């Protein structure tokens, strides 16, 4: 079974192997950091409450991205999940590269590098397993949203992070998202770490908006 971080990253890989532009956004960066923290929580390395994200063990998990986050958490101060997500978003590009590497090792996708007009360098990650893992993740999200039952914690978290990271728009139309908004709000992100990611995204947007306002005046 792949990790939550790998699943979320896989959702950002388009049919032609391109990484969606969304993956370059601050919101996706923070959702990805949240996924790493939740993987670490499930592995018993960290636990979160409203006051702090607590490191329980710094023993590596064997997953590069999650272990990089664990290393940073272990070396830093005790602070809220929101604060950690805001700080670690700068590491997201490296975390995405590490996660894509993990997915390559598992044989789920591979890297192709091309040159366009002899100069522009492009990287793509075509999916190799017939898209099984990616399809399963998408189907689980849709099944949870369209059913009336309660989701598993994993699926609730995946929905919450996909929404926070702006990934849902990649395979659901705006009208479908609007139609499902109430259900998304009800079952998505029933988790303290996801709520920390959402708070971080709101804080980050406020800081950016404030900076723009200052530059206007």
């Amino acid at each position, binding site marked *: 079974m792949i990790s939550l971080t790998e699943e979320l990253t896989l959702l950002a890989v388009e049919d032609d192997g391109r990484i969606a532009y969304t993956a370059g956004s601050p919101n996706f960066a923070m959702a990805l950091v949240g996924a790493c923290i*939740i993987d670490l*929580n*499930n592995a*018993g390395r960290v*636990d*979160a*409450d*409203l006051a702090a994200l607590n490191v*329980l063990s710094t023993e590596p998990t064997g997953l590069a991205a999650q272990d990089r986050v664990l290393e940073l958490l272990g070396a830093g101060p005790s602070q809220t999940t929101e604060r950690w997500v805001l700080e670690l978003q700068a590491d997201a590009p490296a975390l995405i590269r590490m996660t894509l590497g993990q997915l390559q090792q598992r044989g789920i996708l591979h890297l192709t590098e091309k040159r366009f007009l002899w100069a522009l360098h492009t990287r793509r990650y075509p999916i190799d397993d017939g898209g099984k893992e990616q399809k399963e993740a998408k189907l689980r999200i849709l099944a949870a949203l369209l059913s009336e*039952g*309660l*989701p*598993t*914690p994993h699926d*609730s978290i995946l929905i919450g992070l996909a929404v926070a990271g702006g990934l849902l728009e990649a395979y659901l139309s705006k009208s479908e998202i609007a139609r499902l908004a109430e259900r998304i709000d*009800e*079952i998505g*992100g*029933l*988790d*303290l*770490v996801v*709520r920390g990611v959402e708070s971080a995204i709101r804080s980050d947007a406020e800081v950016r908006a404030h900076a723009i306002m200052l530059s206007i005046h």
Partner: protein
Amino acid sequence: MNITNDTDNKTTTIHVAGRLDFEAAGAFQKEIESAVAAAAAAGNALIIDCAGLEYVSSAGLRVFLVGARAAKGGSVPFAVYALTAAVKEVFEVSGFGRIIDVLNDRAGALEKVGRTA
């Protein structure tokens, strides 16, 4: 963490006390899954008494969702009650109040699951 349970008037009550963190989450999940299975087989309701629960972390919180999901799947009426202020705040922030019936006291929980006090 301390977990006990009793059954009376077609209702199983799990009493949970102490700290529900990563370390305690596994034992609580086993208890809740086993209680849901037994309640489903006997046609009982399941309520969780949180009066002694002082602390819940992200890992502990997920177990409530596991329990509520299993109860819904097994058609077992399910509610939690008597949340301390700290646990109530965690339920509110995480959105659990929208998917799980949270009552102030035992009488309210029994009424919610269709039993009389």
